[in-house]
């Protein structure tokens, strides 16, 4: 070595500073002799993951970003547990509290932030902490063992993460917030309210519009007094009202300080050879507290130190992506409407989804996503780029199918600079991903994830990673052959053919013989194999209850709170006063919270406890309406010629006959029928799987309709003259569907896939129809009413009750 390396010291061993060093080592591994000094007794760890540690989702080891081995492998001198007390800028020397003196040529300040403690009396008491580092996390864990009541002051990002962690630790947690709604810096009011609802459902409590006045207690905290005179008890108070840049050292060293350490676009402070990066730095008036901007700053600084060209740092448009107890929240840019902006909103309270785009002069300037943040990365990228979105607004709001994204995304990605962060969770840049594809030979998203961790955390950037894979690998990009699920690469037809060829008879056998990758399958393949085996071997196969979904296992629809709903069968939607009285009496007796007419002309008793189901079925003494299964649901009817002035045929009679013929039939998907007594089609038969419409002197038979996810009108299959022919064609059609369609494929999708003509052809010959009719009748003859069966079989009935009351040993 002839060139003497320059000495570089980094003060602060956290995410931003070490990130800059990592980048520098890639650009100029030989340029510097590096020393890092950090106050905490740990190597560089991921502060963002502290909430996961608190929640028990990660161990301390798992959140270490650079272990000690990394430091030594680059010959970095590391002082942990040391705090730099002063910098002699003239002598270019730093001094630590433990007596270490080190000289530098270049110096980076990455001193981060300190939690902001409210200036109120009592903050020095035991049990008052912040939520900033590993030590705080450990205190919370200890306190939760001994005490129960926690207050978190601050309803922002950090406060909610802390509160969620404390909830996981079993504490009673209330969040104190000065504003009317939580996370007001990241969310608009509507999203904030939805978030609060979700969090309250998980047990978090909120004290809103409360200004903290004083912390009460002698040695240890006892409570918190508010400005309005009210008080809340607390064994632990976590302050999470904000952070402030840690500038003490910079200020005492004569470096220009405003709120943070003032830096220019190259992260240079007011003194030459001294740089600042991360939360302690203030760039164009802004001190950032989020990871992505800090990584961007680190990349600029690394280039500067390596002597590589850089355009400098121009500030960041920030986005927030938060996952609080499974609730995804995202916001970016200017998400509150201002004069001159327009907003598009989508709010779906059934699914808990809310989306808002804020647009100004045809450009996307802000977005809020709640409950479904998959498009976050893409929208964020558009906000940053300031691209014109005229004509695509609705498409963006409602999501774009991945295949439609491929080309414009490619163009957008191509123009993106190499140091732009693609994965904000793990700080992976476009350049890094490009490198592992072009030089590292990654050909799938899975491999990129394994190499770089991009898309490994929240997954929000997966579309961008996919786009980059397309861009750099092109033809070489591997799309793994898709089987019916992740456990196999075989498709439906291959599986059914193999079952027939080898006469496989159980789900386990199929998985074993056809080399399933998961020994016991998954909720996609298990029910489908169960269906195929039952369809192929109706007489021999014993249905596997444990391979059915919850609804079908318990013969009721599970609701969001774990209760169930009961829908008795009401043939053709025709009931009687006696039957109604019976249903009402049962509903009263079992305290049913909601009684509702379904869309299929029957009554739904909702909110039933699982243990009450068998008793209710017994007392109702009605057959199951199968409102929960991939089977015949209802046959909707109009009044028909029984009462109607226009009715040309007996729709009620035909509906009841069809429903009695096909009830309990297992099918690939749910099957809905309808019968209309005249062409006015009041039963809406033309959006059903099998629709029957009366005409003068006959019936039109319609197939493949759907009024659900993708509305599809039926195709006319044929016109028949007699009632018996309706039954014959319905039987043949349904059996052909049972034998040909994939599990979970409704008739509408199936017809789209195979074409109406192929179905017409298959049902053309009377012999073929007769064979199909015979097969469906065989299958139907073997079915029993599930409710009755459970009521009369203790072995089945036991599963509806809690296991016997425990006794202490």
């Amino acid at each position, binding site marked *: 070595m002839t060139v003497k390396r320059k000495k570089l010291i980094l003060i602060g061993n956290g995410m931003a500073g070490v990130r800059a060093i990592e980048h520098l080592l890639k650009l100029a591994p030989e340029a510097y002799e590096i020393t890092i000094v950090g106050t905490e007794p740990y190597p560089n760890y991921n502060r963002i993951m502290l909430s996961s540690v608190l929640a028990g989702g990660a161990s301390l080891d798992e959140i270490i970003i650079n272990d000690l081995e990394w430091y030594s492998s680059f010959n970095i001198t590391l002082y942990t547990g040391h705090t730099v007390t002063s910098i002699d800028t003239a002598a270019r020397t730093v001094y630590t509290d433990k007596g270490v003196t080190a000289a530098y040529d270049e110096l980076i300040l990455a001193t981060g932030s300190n939690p902001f403690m409210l200036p109120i009396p009592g903050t020095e008491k035991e049990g008052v902490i912040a939520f900033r580092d590993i030590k705080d996390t450990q205190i919370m864990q200890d306190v939760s063992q001994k005490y129960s009541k926690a207050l978190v002051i601050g309803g922002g990002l950090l406060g909610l993460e802390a509160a969620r962690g404390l909830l996981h630790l079993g504490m009673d947690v209330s969040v104190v917030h000065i504003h009317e709604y939580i996370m007001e810096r990241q969310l608009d009011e509507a999203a904030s309210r939805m978030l609060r609802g979700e969090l309250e459902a998980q047990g978090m409590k909120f004290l809103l519009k409360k200004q903290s006045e004083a912390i009460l207690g002698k040695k240890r905290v006892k409570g918190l007094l508010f400005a309005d005179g009210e008080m809340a008890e607390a064994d632990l108070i976590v302050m999470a009202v904000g952070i402030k840049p840690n500038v003490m050292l910079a200020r005492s060293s004569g470096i220009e300080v405003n709120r943070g350490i003032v830096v220019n676009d190259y992260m240079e402070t007011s003194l030459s050879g001294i740089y600042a990066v991360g939360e302690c730095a203030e760039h164009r008036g802004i001190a950032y507290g989020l990871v992505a901007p800090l990584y961007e700053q680190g990349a600029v600084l690394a280039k500067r130190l390596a002597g590589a060209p850089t355009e400098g740092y121009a500030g960041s448009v920030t986005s927030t992506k938060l996952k609080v107890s499974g609730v995804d929240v995202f916001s970016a840019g200017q998400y509150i409407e201002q004069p001159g902006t327009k907003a598009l909103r989508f709010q779906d309270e059934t699914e808990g989804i809310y989306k808002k785009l804020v647009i100004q002069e045809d450009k996307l300037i802000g977005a809020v996503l709640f409950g479904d943040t998959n498009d976050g990365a893409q929208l964020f990228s558009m906000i940053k780029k300031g691209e014109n979105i005229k004509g695509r607004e609705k498409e963006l709001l409602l999501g774009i199918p991945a295949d439609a994204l491929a080309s414009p995304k490619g163009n957008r990605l191509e123009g993106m600079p190499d140091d732009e962060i693609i994965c904000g969770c793990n700080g992976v840049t476009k350049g890094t991903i490009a490198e592992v594809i072009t030089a590292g030979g990654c050909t799938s998203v899975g491999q990129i994830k394994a190499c770089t961790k991009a898309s490994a955390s929240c997954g929000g950037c997966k579309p961008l990673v996919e786009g980059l894979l397309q861009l750099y690998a092109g033809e070489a990009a591997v799309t793994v052959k898709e089987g019916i699920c992740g456990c196999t690469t075989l498709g439906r037809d291959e599986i059914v053919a193999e079952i027939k060829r080898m006469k496989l008879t159980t789900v386990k056998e199929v998985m074993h013989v056809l080399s399933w990758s998961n020994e016991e399958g998954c*909720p996609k393949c298990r029910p489908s194999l169960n269906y195929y085996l039952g369809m192929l071997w109706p007489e021999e196969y014993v249905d596997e209850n444990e391979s059915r979904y919850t609804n079908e296992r318990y013969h009721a629809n599970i609701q969001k709170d774990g209760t169930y709903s009961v829908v008795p069968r009401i043939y053709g939607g025709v009931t009687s006063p006696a039957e109604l009285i019976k249903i009402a009496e049962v509903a009263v007796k079992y305290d049913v919270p909601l009684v509702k007419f379904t869309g299929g002309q029957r009554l739904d008793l909702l909110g039933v406890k699982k243990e009450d189901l068998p008793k209710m079925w017994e007392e109702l003494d009605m057959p199951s309406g199968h409102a929960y299964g991939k089977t015949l649901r209802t046959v909707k009817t109009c009044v028909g010629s029984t009462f109607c002035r226009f009715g040309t045929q007996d729709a009620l009679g035909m509906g009841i006959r069809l429903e009695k013929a096909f009830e309990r039939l297992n099918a690939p998907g749910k099957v809905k029928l309808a019968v209309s007594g005249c062409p006015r089609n009041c039963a809406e038969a033309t959006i059903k799987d099998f629709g029957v419409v009366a005409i003068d002197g006959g019936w039109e038979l319609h197939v493949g309709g759907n009024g659900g996810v993708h509305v599809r009108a039926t195709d006319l299959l044929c016109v028949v003259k007699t009632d018996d022919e309706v039954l014959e064609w319905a039987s043949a059609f349904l059996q052909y569907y049972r034998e040909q369609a994939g599990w979970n494929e409704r008739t509408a999708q199936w017809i789209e896939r195979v074409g109406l003509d192929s179905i017409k052809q298959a049902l053309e010959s009377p012999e073929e129809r007769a064979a199909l009719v015979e097969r469906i009748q065989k299958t139907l003859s073997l079915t029993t009413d599930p409710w009755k069966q459970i009521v009369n079989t203790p072995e089945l009935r036991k*599963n509806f009750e809690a296991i016997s009351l*425990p*006794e202490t*040993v």
Partner: protein
Amino acid sequence: MTKLLIGNLNEVDIKGSRKLRVGDTEIALFRLSSGEVLAVENRCPHKGGLLSEGMVCGSKVHCPLHDWRIELHTGEVQAPDTGHVTTYEVEVDHATGSLYLTI
């Protein structure tokens, strides 16, 4: 830590589940194909789904609400989701079939 006698092995179907309440906690009990009996808190960390109602695949249960997968031995939520469910120790007396739960 208390040890409770909670029932007998033959009251839990293979690949099936039963639930019980101890104090304020609802616990789901699972019997795997391997013969093991495992217990976890009957609450998915995602949206509170009842794990006892989910499908058992190997030593994992899929939450019936949104298909989160939970490893029953450790209570760990499986990737890509994250989280943790409390687990409880279950002992089986193979001579009598008695099930004991420690809570």
